């Protein structure tokens, strides 16, 4: 949460803010800190078996690759592509618990080619999302946008690891 939030806040603060907007942003940040304190679960995540983590990581990477391919090589666009992959995952993987992980991966696939430039990088970011999904199981459960935040963390970490950056 902290990684994408810090980057976004830094970019917001680059824009000229009047004192009124500054007060509003500060107040919202205060409420968000209270929400984080209230929503985060204190207990440690249960240790995951390597097989479970691997399966989830592959599901997320599959979702990421499918969305990226649909978004870049068809006229659908990234938003509709993520919808197609989400509905497909919800149908195909309905008997397992993997549809949510695949949908988290789909958010990675919404990245622009200027950020994730090739399919192997998208796959790596998807794998990282799957690992994060299992590692952070139970933390911020029930908070909408949790999957997207994991995807954003995975994309930013993959960019940093690949020696890239963002402007």
């Amino acid at each position, binding site marked *: *949460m902290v990684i*994408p*939030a810090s*980057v*976004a806040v830094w*970019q*917001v603060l680059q*824009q000229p803010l009047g004192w009124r907007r500054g007060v509003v942003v500060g107040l*919202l940040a*205060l*409420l*968000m*800190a*209270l*929400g*984080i304190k*209230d*929503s985060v679960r204190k207990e440690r995540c249960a240790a995951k078996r390597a097989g479970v983590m691997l399966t989830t990581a592959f599901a997320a990477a599959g979702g*990421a690759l499918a969305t990226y391919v649909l978004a870049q090589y068809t006229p*659908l*666009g*990234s*938003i*509709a592509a*993520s*919808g*197609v*992959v*989400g*509905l497909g*995952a*919800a149908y195909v993987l309905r008997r397992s618990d993997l*549809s*949510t992980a695949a*949908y988290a991966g789909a*958010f*990675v*696939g*919404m*990245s*622009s080619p*200027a*950020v994730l430039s090739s399919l192997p990088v998208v796959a790596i*970011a998807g794998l990282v999302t799957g690992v994060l999904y299992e590692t952070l199981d139970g933390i*911020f*459960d*029930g*908070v*909408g*946008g*949790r*999957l*997207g*935040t*994991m*995807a*954003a963390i*995975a*994309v930013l970490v993959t960019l940093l690891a690949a020696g890239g950056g*963002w402007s």
Partner: protein
Amino acid sequence: MLFWSLVSAVAAGLAGFLGRKLLKLSSVQASAAIALLAGVTLPQLSSEGAYLAAVCTCASYAAMSSEKMVYTPLQMAGVSGLCGLIAYVGRDCLVGVGGRLGTYAAAAVLIFAGGMRAGEQLQLLRGGSMQQ
């Protein structure tokens, strides 16, 4: 622009919330259906359609919140409105980074949770001062 951002966010958030409640869709199904519908239709309607589709998708992620977090349509409308506001303010941030809209949705839900908590504390304080 901000007005349409708020309107589309509230509509998408409520659609996701009611889709889960009334049609018994899973959170992934409800959110993906809204993303697909918004992503296909809105860009055809106006020049700002792509941005509004992103706002609708952001609100649909917020609608994936559990019933413990957001449990009435009015609360969902509030969270979705926050999503629309944050998406509007942050439209130039994290551009092209996958998961950006989800991060905005999570921020909106957490701000809402913080607001609820603060409201409860204020009510407790007010109740305490009334008893004294």
